[in-house]
């Protein structure tokens, strides 16, 4: 099965190098930029891999910056996945997930409906992204 991802809804912000997990110093400029990738062609009732990535620093709270000030904990702790309005998966994370958290999970493509992923971080911010499953 060709796995070239094609459905890449992009936020208004331009793509940043941090999406390829660059360990740039300082916070990335586009915190909250999110992407969901689906396979190129989706057959009905096939199990597809959904890949979701969010740009987020995921600070543990144990590091200090160059001036010696502690960097407060700032990380995504809850992720929910809905498919056509129904919740199909829920992830509980800690700061032990790497910077720019990436997750790949299976999903049975039973109908043409949007897949929405919502990330919530420990400061209360929410980040949304969704993509439509279309049978080809």
């Amino acid at each position, binding site marked *: 099965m060709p796995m070239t991802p094609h459905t890449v809804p992009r936020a208004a912000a331009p793509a940043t190098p941090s999406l390829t997990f660059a360990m740039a110093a300082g916070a990335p400029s586009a915190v909250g930029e999110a992407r969901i990738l689906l396979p190129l062609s989706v057959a009905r009732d096939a199990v597809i891999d959904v890949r979701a990535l969010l740009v987020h620093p995921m600070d543990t709270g*144990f*590091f200090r910056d160059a001036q010696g000030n502690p960097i407060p904990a700032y990380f995504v702790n809850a992720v929910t996945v809905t498919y056509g309005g129904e919740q199909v998966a829920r*992830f509980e*994370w800690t700061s*032990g997930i790497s910077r720019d958290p990436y997750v*790949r999970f299976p999903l049975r493509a039973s109908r043409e409906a949007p897949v929405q992923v919502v990330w919530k971080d420990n400061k209360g911010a929410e980040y949304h992204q969704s993509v439509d499953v279309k049978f080809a």
Partner: protein
Amino acid sequence: MGSEESVRDATGGDAGSAPGAADDRCAAPVGRRGFLRAGVLAAAGLAFVRPLFGETAAGRLGAGDGVRPTAPSGPDDEMTDAVRQVLKDKFGDRPITPGHVQLDIPTDAPDGRAVPTILDIDLPITATSYVATYHLLVDHNPDIALATYHLGPANGEGPIETRIKMRRTSYVRAIAEMNTGELWSAAVKVFVGLNGCG
């Protein structure tokens, strides 16, 4: 003769030193022979202890799956009390059986900031039997219970992939909780270079 021998033993076999000039930096000086004897005893003790460590590590959580054969055993192989507490809080006294879970993670991770991790299970996923939750634990991380992934029958068969941080060399444990309540586990010892947690 016998007394001379004991004196030489007590002074570390130094023939030039006078009797009674034992090294007073050490409260109980150990001669060369005594040292050698102690070494032999210690080696014998280690030879006895090592398989014991291996056995305990390979015991409850299937540690040893995926560990390279030359992996040195040591205190990291013992499950710490904190990990036991986390497991007790999560699962109580339910039995955790090694097997069926596949934990794909490099055994050598030079950069602890991002260790690619894949969780999978070799049981068939059906509407009545599926993985309800994957639990991911790292023994020596600040957050031992690193992540949980709640899934459902709508997900189907397939792996969960993510990237985790690791503080130092430690066991990574994956536990799959089926909707029927069964607990399957796998554990891999990962040698970490750079501390990714702070």
